[in-house]
C-alpha cells in the first residue's frame, strides 16, 4: 500500500479511465492547459491531447447536456462541474434529461455519464461557493450519487462507477484534496456502489455521515473514546442507492444514533436517515435519533463565523454526550 492524496487518487482513476477506454473523454471548465481548478487534471492536456481533454466554455448546461448526448450514442464521457454550486446551472440537464431519458424511452437509451463535481464548506470562499447539494440530487430516481471521503474510496468507487451504464454524480469534497490515505495496490480493487463503510465499531452510539462529515464523525469518536464512550462510525459513501441496512443494524446494536451532515437541517439528507431508522429500528431506540447539521444560514465568509456554521468534531461529540445523558 502506498500513501497518496485524495487529489492524486482522483487523478489516477481518471488517467486509468483514459488509458483503458477509448470511449472515455473529459470535458469541463479549465481542465485543459490550466490543469483543473483543483489541479486534478494537471498534465492531462499535454499527455492526452485536445480530443480527449476538452476545455469547455463556461456553460454548465451544455457541458452536462453534451455529455448526455455523447453517452446516448455510446461514448463514456466524464464531465466536470467545477463545483456543485455551478451544477444549479446544469440542473435541467442533470435532473430533467440525464436522469430520465432511460426510463422515458422505455429503456432504449442508457446514459453512461459520470459528472464529477466538488461540494462542501469550510474553504473561506463565501456563501455561493460553499454549498452541499448532493442530498438534492439523491432525491432524483435515475441518478447515482457517490460521495467518497478517502483516497481509497475515491479509487474503489470511481472504478465501480465506470462499470455502471447510468448517470453518476461523483461528488468530491473541497477540503479533502490535500488529505492523505492508503491507496489499494490492486487494479482490481472495487467498492460496490451502495455499500456503506463501518469505519469504526463501538457499542454505545452510532455516528453516521458522508464525505468530510464521516471524517468529522470519526474525530468525534476519538474524543468520545477518551471519555469511555464507544461509537460505531458509518460512512455512507453513496446517497443513492442508500445502504440503510448497515445503519439500521448498527442502531439495533447501539440503540442510539446521531446523524452528521454539512448542509442545513431543514430539508437535509439526515432527515431521511432518521426516518429510515425510526421505520426499521424504532423498538431498539433508547433515545430520539439526533442530528448535527449546518446552521440555517448562507455560509458566511468570515472564518470564525464559517466555522460556527459547520459541524465540528467538538459539536458532534457534544451532541453525542447529550444523547447519552452525559453532558
Amino acid at each position: 500500500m502506498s500513501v497518496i492524496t485524495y487529489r492524486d487518487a482522483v487523478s489516477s482513476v481518471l488517467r486509468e479511465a483514459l488509458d483503458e477506454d477509448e470511449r472515455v473523454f473529459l470535458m469541463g471548465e479549465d481542465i485543459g492547459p490550466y490543469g483543473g481548478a483543483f489541479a486534478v487534471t494537471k498534465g492531462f492536456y499535454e499527455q492526452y491531447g485536445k480530443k480527449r481533454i476538452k476545455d469547455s466554455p463556461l456553460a454548465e448546461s451544455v457541458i452536462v447536456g453534451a455529455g448526455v448526448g455523447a453517452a446516448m450514442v455510446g461514448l463514456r464521457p466524464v464531465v466536470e462541474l467545477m463545483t456543485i454550486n455551478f451544477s444549479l446551472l446544469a440542473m435541467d440537464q442533470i435532473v430533467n434529461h440525464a436522469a430520465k431519458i432511460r426510463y422515458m424511452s422505455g429503456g432504449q437509451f442508457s446514459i453512461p455519464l459520470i459528472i464529477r463535481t466538488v461540494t462542501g464548506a469550510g474553504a473561506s470562499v463565501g456563501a455561493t461557493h460553499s454549498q452541499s447539494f448532493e442530498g438534492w440530487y439523491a432525491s432524483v430516481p435515475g441518478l447515482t450519487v457517490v460521495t467518497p471521503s478517502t483516497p481509497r474510496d475515491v479509487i474503489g468507487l470511481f472504478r465501480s462507477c465506470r462499470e455502471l451504464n447510468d448517470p453518476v454524480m461523483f461528488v468530491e469534497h473541497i477540503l479533502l484534496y490535500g488529505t492523505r490515505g492508503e491507496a489499494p495496490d490492486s487494479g482490481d480493487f472495487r467498492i460496490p456502489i451502495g455499500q456503506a463503510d463501518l469505519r469504526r465499531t463501538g457499542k454505545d452510539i452510532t455516528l453516521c455521515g458522508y464525505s468530510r462529515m464521516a471524517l468529522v464523525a470519526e474525530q468525534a469518536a476519538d474524543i468520545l473514546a477518551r471519555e469511555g464512550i464507544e461509537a460505531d462510525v458509518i460512512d455512507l459513501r453513496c446517497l443513492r442507492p442508500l445502504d440503510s441496512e448497515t445503519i439500521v443494524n448498527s442502531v439495533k446494536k447501539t440503540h442510539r444514533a446521531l446523524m452528521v451532515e454539512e448542509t442545513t437541517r431543514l430539508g437535509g439528507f439526515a432527515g431521511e436517515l432518521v426516518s429510515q431508522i425510526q421505520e426499521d429500528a424504532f423498538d431498539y431506540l433508547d433515545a430520539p435519533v439526533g442530528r448535527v447539521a449546518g446552521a440555517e444560514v448562507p455560509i458566511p465568509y468570515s472564518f470564525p463565523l464559517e466555522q460556527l456554521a459547520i459541524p465540528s468534531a467538538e459539536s458532534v461529540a457534544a451532541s453525542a454526550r447529550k444523547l447519552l445523558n452525559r453532558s
Partner: protein
Amino acid sequence: MLKAADVPELTKTDLLGFYRQMKLIREFERESERQYTRGNIKGFLHVYNGEEAIAVGAINTLREDDYVVTHYRDHGQALARGIGSKEVMAELMGKATGCSNGKGGSMHLFSSELNFMGGYAIVGGQLCIAAGIGLAVQYRGNDQVVLCFFGDGAVNEGEFHEAMNLAAIWNLPVIFFCEHNLYGMGASSKETLVMWDSLHEMAAAYGMDRYEVDGNDVLEVRDLMQKINIDVRAGKGPAFVVARTYRLRGHSVADPADYRPDDEVSYWAGQDPIPRFRDWLTQEGIATVEDFDEIDANVDEEVVAAAEFGELSPWPEPDDLYHGVYTDRPAEGIPTSGSS
C-alpha cells in the same frame, strides 16, 4: 417555388410519398385530438397541424445513420422518421406497445432503432444533447449529421446560446433547425424575441452558416436541407435554419388560441402546406384527383388502424412501474411482497 424540372431526381413515387407523409401526419393529429376528447389520451397533446412540410421535407434528406433530436411537438417528426403510426398512437395512449413503452407519452417519443433520439419537453434542453451527439460523431471521425428541431420559443433559452456556441467553436456536425411558428406557447414572438423577423441572423453571432426558408413548402425545405447536409457532412461545422411556419391549432389541445389576430390566422390558413403541395403536384401534371383520393383513403385506413391498435393494446404491467430506471440495478423502493 420550385418547378418539377428543378427536382429531376424525384420520381412521382417520391413526390407522392411526401404528400402521403404530410397527409398521414395531419390525419394522425386529427385522430389524436378525437382520442383526446374521448379520454383515451391524457395530459398534454401538442399537435403538428400546419408544420408538416418541415418534418417531411427535412427528415427525408437524412441517411438512416443520421440522428434526429426534437421538441415536445414531436409526432410529426416521429412519423416522418418512420416510427409506425400504431406505435406512436399507442404511446399517446400510454400503452405498453407504444414506441417508449408507454413511459414517455406524447412529448417523449423515442426510437433507438431509427436514431430518433427523442422528443424533449423542457424547452431548449435538446440543443445541448444534440451538440453532444454531434461531438460523438466528430470524436469517432464519422460523417453523420445531427438534425435538431426546436421552436422560436427555445431561442430565448440560455441553452440555445450554450449549444450554438459550443457547436460553432468545436465545429460540430449539428443542424439547428428552428420551426418559427411565431408563438412560444401563447406569447407572440413579436413581443418576446427581438430578432423575430430576421431570426436566422442570430447565428451570425456564432459565425455559423444560416438560412431562412418557407417552412410550408416541402420541396423548398428539402432542397435547402440537401445542400446543408453536404456541407455539414464535409466538416464545415454547424448550420442554423429558420423555417417560417404557423400552427393551425393552439399550443396544445387545451388552448383555443384566441390570442391570435383573425387576419393572421386566415393568412396562414391560406398557406397550409398540404393543399399547397397538392396544388403544385396538380399544376405540374404529376398527380391527378384519383391519385390523391387513393392516398387519402389509404391514410384514413392507416389512422383508423393506429387508433384501434392503441385502444386494443394492453396497459403496461404494474411491475413495469419500477422497470427501466437503471440499466444495472433495480430501482429503489420496489415493494417487497407482503409489505403494506
